[in-house]
């Protein structure tokens, strides 16, 4: 090839095992590591349901005893995650919070926090299941049954659904009237036996026990009775409208309702 090669060969150290065209000698281990990683990834997807159940059981047990709370940050580690679809959410309290009930009703209404607290309260304890996979066991929610508010408003017989709006200005949800009248659907004022905090959608959020947690709209400010279901925020982005835990969104979680 060229005249300098023999001199290079004379170098004292063993030569770099590479020919000038870049095709080195030696085994193509790099390619095997890459393909192996791909294979493990595919295997992980296939084995995920089994692995996930095992990890949830294990981490659920550990996180109860973990004082640092770091296990809560692991996937499937338990604990709530904060999701907001907007940049910032105004804070509402006793002074400025209002919940309106309108649409196809005989008696539209507007409730303050004190009004809501004065109504009969129901406490429910179920697991919370997010459609992205995390689950928080046995979380108490307390508040007014949605059916109580609907009955008070007098729903038009030709109505078929309820639409929820939120004071974050963007989030919406909806339920059929039958779903909305279930006894495990609350306008929640308390979560984990404390007033619902701002980050958890306080002071008032929806709680739909048997459905994935995106149905439990945070920062609830409006209840509108409509003729038919209008898909909510995430439902327009691909999630199921009827979001029964374990029977929708392609998931097989244990039911929470």
């Amino acid at each position, binding site marked *: 090839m060229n005249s*300098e090669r023999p*001199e*290079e060969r004379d*170098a004292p*150290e*063993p*030569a*770099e*095992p*590479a020919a000038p065209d*870049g*095709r*080195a*000698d*030696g*085994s*193509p*281990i*790099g*390619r*095997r*590591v*890459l*393909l*192996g*990683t*791909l294979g*493990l*990834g*595919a295997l*992980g*997807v*296939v084995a*995920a*349901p089994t*692995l*996930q159940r095992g990890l949830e059981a294990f981490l659920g047990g550990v996180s109860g005893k973990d004082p640092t709370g770091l296990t809560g*940050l*692991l*996937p*499937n580690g338990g604990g*709530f*995650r*904060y*999701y*907001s*679809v*907007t*940049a*910032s*959410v105004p804070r509402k309290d006793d002074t400025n919070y209002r919940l309106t009930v309108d649409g196809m009703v005989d008696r539209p209404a507007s409730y303050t926090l004190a009004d809501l607290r004065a109504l009969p309260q129901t406490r429910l304890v179920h697991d919370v299941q997010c459609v*992205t*996979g995390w689950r928080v066991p046995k979380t108490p929610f307390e508040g007014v049954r949605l059916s109580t508010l609907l009955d008070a408003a007098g729903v038009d017989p030709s109505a078929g659904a309820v639409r929820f709006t939120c004071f974050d200005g963007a989030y919406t949800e909806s339920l059929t009237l039958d779903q909305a009248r279930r006894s495990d659907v609350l306008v929640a004022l308390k979560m984990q036996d404390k007033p619902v905090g701002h*980050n958890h959608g306080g002071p008032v959020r929806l709680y739909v026990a048997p459905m994935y947690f995106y149905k439990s709209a945070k920062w609830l400010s409006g209840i509108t009775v409509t003729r038919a279901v209008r898909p909510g925020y995430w439902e327009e*982005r*691909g999630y199921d409208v009827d979001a029964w835990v374990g029977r929708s*969104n*392609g*998931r*097989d979680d244990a039911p929470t309702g």
Partner: protein
Amino acid sequence: MHPPVEAPARSTRVRRFSRGEKWVHRAAAALMGVCVATAACLYIPALAELVGRRELVVRIHEWAGLLLPVPVLAGSVSRAFRKDLGHLNRWGPHDRIWLRAVLRRDHRRASRPAAKFNAGQKTYAAWIAGATLVMLGTGLLMWFTRLTPLMWRSSATFVHDWLALTVGVVLAGHIGMALGDPEARRGLRTGEVSREWAEREHPLWRP
């Protein structure tokens, strides 16, 4: 021709990366950085509360992830880059010696022979390439949920979450190693390293 093999070369700098290669690394690092930063804003509660705007952050994350392989694909038009991929792919006997020394925590230079890339760099390169493709594949399953049975999305999310955590740890190691070796960083910034460094860290490399 009688080239003086030793004399002038000793104190000079030697070329380690071409201009194209430097840009491949910069672009890939920037896209990976965006993926990690947006992932943190989607995943860590304190950051999620601070940033919000979930829809926008998700879009940025998706596009950065989709574009992540592009620098490497574009780089493969460069001969220098293809040649270095060959170096990264092929393992010689010295790479096994290097790995064995690492496992035995043997820090002597002599027991860690390396050519242009040491066995650790080769392992990292191959693994991060594979992991990125797995992240891309599982990410696409989560993105285009209508293309596959929805069941797959949960499984893809599971792999995506755990592998993201692993990638984060490995990436921190990669950056930590670079922070500890200014000359290696200079190599990627300027394309050149000192001959002393090359002979010390990569004794079997013939630049």
